[in-house]
């Protein structure tokens, strides 16, 4: 396993008494897209959030098991969560740009981590906006509020924002489910582009989306990891019946 490889070992997440994720062990391939699918409430989002310890913010949430990034178990209580989250970007279902200018939205993270020079920040902003194909659309109005953009642009701004702190891993929680088809297509295109540089884990309710963008797919049901295989195989010839049922829309 290389220095940045992401994997989990018997990872369980509890909300109070309820176990939302049950002993899930997964290896994520580097520089590829892994899709997590499954019906609502199956624990896939919870699982995703435990990969960068965002569940810490929810009172009553408890984690058992291990999440490895390279040779570090990030569930270790001594983990520097701040450093960790810098290395793992996250994007949510609902675009959540800060109430600041487009420029400041992107410069925000680097500033947290001590980047001060105007020139350096300018560079980061441009690079990140180019990576998310937003540069040409907004380069003349960087000082405008990020909230003035369309939903799809906001989401790409949020992705650009998370790239600005130079993560290796991107977690996406239904990044396109609140967007129109054109914006969705752009986000999917972007994901395919970004996987050249980043390890991407995406939660999605959209089967076609999972089939289109991901290299590997994991099917969750009631907190269990049911099946995890190459996307091609999952969608054409799954080995478990419940996977087949879910993918072909017979339940869920």
């Amino acid at each position, binding site marked *: 396993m290389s220095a940045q490889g992401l994997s989990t070992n018997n990872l369980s997440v509890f909300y109070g008494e309820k176990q939302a994720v049950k002993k899930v062990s997964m290896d994520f391939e580097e520089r590829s897209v892994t899709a997590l699918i499954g019906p609502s409430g199956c624990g896939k989002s919870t699982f995703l959030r435990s990969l960068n310890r*965002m569940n810490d*913010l929810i009172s009553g949430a408890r984690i058992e098991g291990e999440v490895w990034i390279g040779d570090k178990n990030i569930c270790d209580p001594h983990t520097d969560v701040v450093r960790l989250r810098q290395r793992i970007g996250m994007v949510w279902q609902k675009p*959540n740009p800060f109430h600041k200018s487009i420029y400041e939205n992107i410069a925000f993270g680097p500033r947290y981590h001590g980047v001060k020079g105007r020139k350096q920040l300018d560079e980061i902003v441009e690079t990140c906006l180019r990576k998310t194909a937003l540069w040409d659309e907004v380069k003349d109005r960087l000082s405008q509020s990020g909230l003035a953009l369309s939903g799809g642009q906001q989401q790409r701004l*949020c992705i650009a924002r*998370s790239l600005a702190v130079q993560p290796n891993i991107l977690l996406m929680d239904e990044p396109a489910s609140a967007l129109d088809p054109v914006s969705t297509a752009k986000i999917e295109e972007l994901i395919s582009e970004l996987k050249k540089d980043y390890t991407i884990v995406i939660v999605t309710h959209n089967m076609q989306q999972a089939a289109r963008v991901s290299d590997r797919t994991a099917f969750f049901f009631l907190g269990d990891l049911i099946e995890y295989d190459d996307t091609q195989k999952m969608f054409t010839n799954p080995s478990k019946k419940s996977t087949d049922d879910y993918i072909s829309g017979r339940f869920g």
Partner: protein
Amino acid sequence: MNLPVTNKQGGPPGKSGKWGKHVIEEARGRAFVYFCVLLMVVTIFSIVFFIASRGLTPFISQGVSVKDMLFGLKWKPEGNPPLFGALPFLFGSFVTSVLAALIAAPLGFCASIFMTEIMPKFGRTALQPAIELLAGIPSVVYGFVGLSVVVPFLRDVFPGQGIGILAGAIVLSVMILPTVTTIGTDALRSLPSGLKEGSYALGATRWQTIYRLILPTALPSLLTGVVLGIARAFGEALAVQMVIGNAPHIPRSLFESATTLTSIITLEMGNTTSGSLHNNALWSLALILLLMTFLFVFVVRMLERRVKR
């Protein structure tokens, strides 16, 4: 089709539809609401009209100039010639209110942050009720406490008698703390939760998130609380009057006696006869208070518009 004709639930529009029960109910409800609103509007306008008509009389028919009142330094309503310089009162009101806000704002903001970000549970169950309790304490009690605790303390530590601007500001700051805190807490609670998560996911610490994201984003709402606090402080009479010393001059230090618009009105209104110049001059002071309140409301509106943008 034989639908049973019924008016109990309003029923389908039929022969009796025009005067069906639902129509009468609607009309009665609307009449009641309209009446209440009308009563309220009439009350507000008559108060404003009354204050304005009395307060403007000295300027219109009794030969006092607006400039003398706003910028004059001497208040001798029974003198010969009578002088109506209200600048010391205006100055006292402004300085005590703004000082009070300067003391209360950081305290209130911190309390809001504590209640929303740091210990929400303890904040909701213990701190918030305690702060709301502060709002319920009568102002005479605040004045009394100020007189027996704040004033002696200031007298011991600083030069002077203890009574004065600073004593007034301290008492007022405690009185407006609930306003600042409650509005601030509501503002912080109503921020979209995704905002905080977005910041944490970038590897921000809690303090960075609070200081660089939450406070700037909620600032207009927080300032709304401060402005409403100043408005309340501006209008508070009794508690300030008990600790400020009521000397009608502009003080040169925080520990000198001063007075405010409200205290001069309460102190002198009993000694004047209605319609006299002195009495009308006090109404002019009331008019100034009213106009200041309008100004504060206006500022709050502006801030709210910034929040919505």
